[in-house]
């Protein structure tokens, strides 16, 4: 008799509805998520693994997602935590050198000849590669904060929310992170014409 009065509230959505919703979220956000993952990891293979890991965790804990907040903010939080955790688990920071893999994780980095008459896209890629290597040489926490600020364009308060830390810590990580980036770029002779000296 008592048991008959205690009933579970029926789920608000069916499994099929949830899967359809999650599929649409993947379609809408996977490019943005991949872009962030690429900046954090430095190559396509690891970026895809990180995006996959983040979506799997998001899906596993989707019942805890507060739908009044943007999905990408929640996904970014999961992804950046997973990235920092992965770096810690590896036990070392992945510092890219000239001999290590390029954007596809296999080939070596190539630097365009500045004097060559390359088109804009190739020139831009040539300028991006040392920047990506500089990101790869940073500590995971600094890299995450700088990428979220300078590439994703998030405000410090949003970064603090994503990284689950204080605004003061975010400010410090970005400041120290930029100093690391600058000294790395100077070390590898990044073109002075770009204003970094």
């Amino acid at each position, binding site marked *: 008799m008592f048991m008959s009065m205690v009933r579970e509230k029926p789920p608000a959505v069916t499994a099929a509805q949830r899967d359809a919703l999650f599929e649409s979220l993947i379609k809408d956000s996977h490019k943005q998520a991949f872009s962030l993952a690429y900046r954090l990891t430095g190559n396509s293979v690891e970026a*895809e693994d990180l*995006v996959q890991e983040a979506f799997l965790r998001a899906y596993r804990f989707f019942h805890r997602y507060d739908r009044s907040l943007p999905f990408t903010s929640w996904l970014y939080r999961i992804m950046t935590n997973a990235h920092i955790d992965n770096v810690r688990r590896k036990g070392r920071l992945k510092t890219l050198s000239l001999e290590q893999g390029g954007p596809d994780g296999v080939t070596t980095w190539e630097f365009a000849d500045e004097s060559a008459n390359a088109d804009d896209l190739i020139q831009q890629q040539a300028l991006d590669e040392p*920047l990506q290597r500089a990101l790869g040489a940073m500590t995971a926490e600094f890299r995450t904060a700088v990428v979220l600020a300078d590439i994703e364009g998030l405000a410090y308060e949003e970064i603090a929310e994503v990284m689950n830390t204080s605004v003061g810590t975010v400010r410090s990580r970005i400041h120290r992170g930029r100093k690391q980036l*600058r000294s790395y770029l100077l070390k590898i002779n990044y073109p002075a014409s770009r204003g970094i000296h």
Partner: protein
Amino acid sequence: MQCNTILSKLSAYLDQELAGFEMIALRDHLSGCSQCRQEAETLQSLKRAFSQMSAPEVPFGLEQRLIERTLGTSASVPLVSRPRLRTFGVLGYATAVAAALVIGVALGMSRTKGGPADAPGVSQSIAYDIRHDQMFMSSTDPLSGLALPQHLAEHP
């Protein structure tokens, strides 16, 4: 403000993340100090270079792979966060309170030591769920990206 103080705030200044009076103080200082101004210009160039990076090329078939690998795990994923009790009226509450009192007295008479997870009749999986929820609240579960303690990671 001294140059050292200015330099430590330059990044936040360029990101427009300082309070109004600090923004004004820094701007004043920069207008009269070429050394700090040069530093600010370099940091601004650095920030611009990263913000202008071209978007990476998304691998062919990524969207489909993500959908298949993620939704392929649907069997074990819960739909709701907690089983919830439906409101069941005054009689129901009275019965529940009475039942709680009886159970409470019985536990008080029989229990010698240990927390809820140690009590007879509380299964390992429930104890695990309780601890897991506590860790979720304290940001130490898999969602937070931090590893579970070894003794909990061993449980399914």
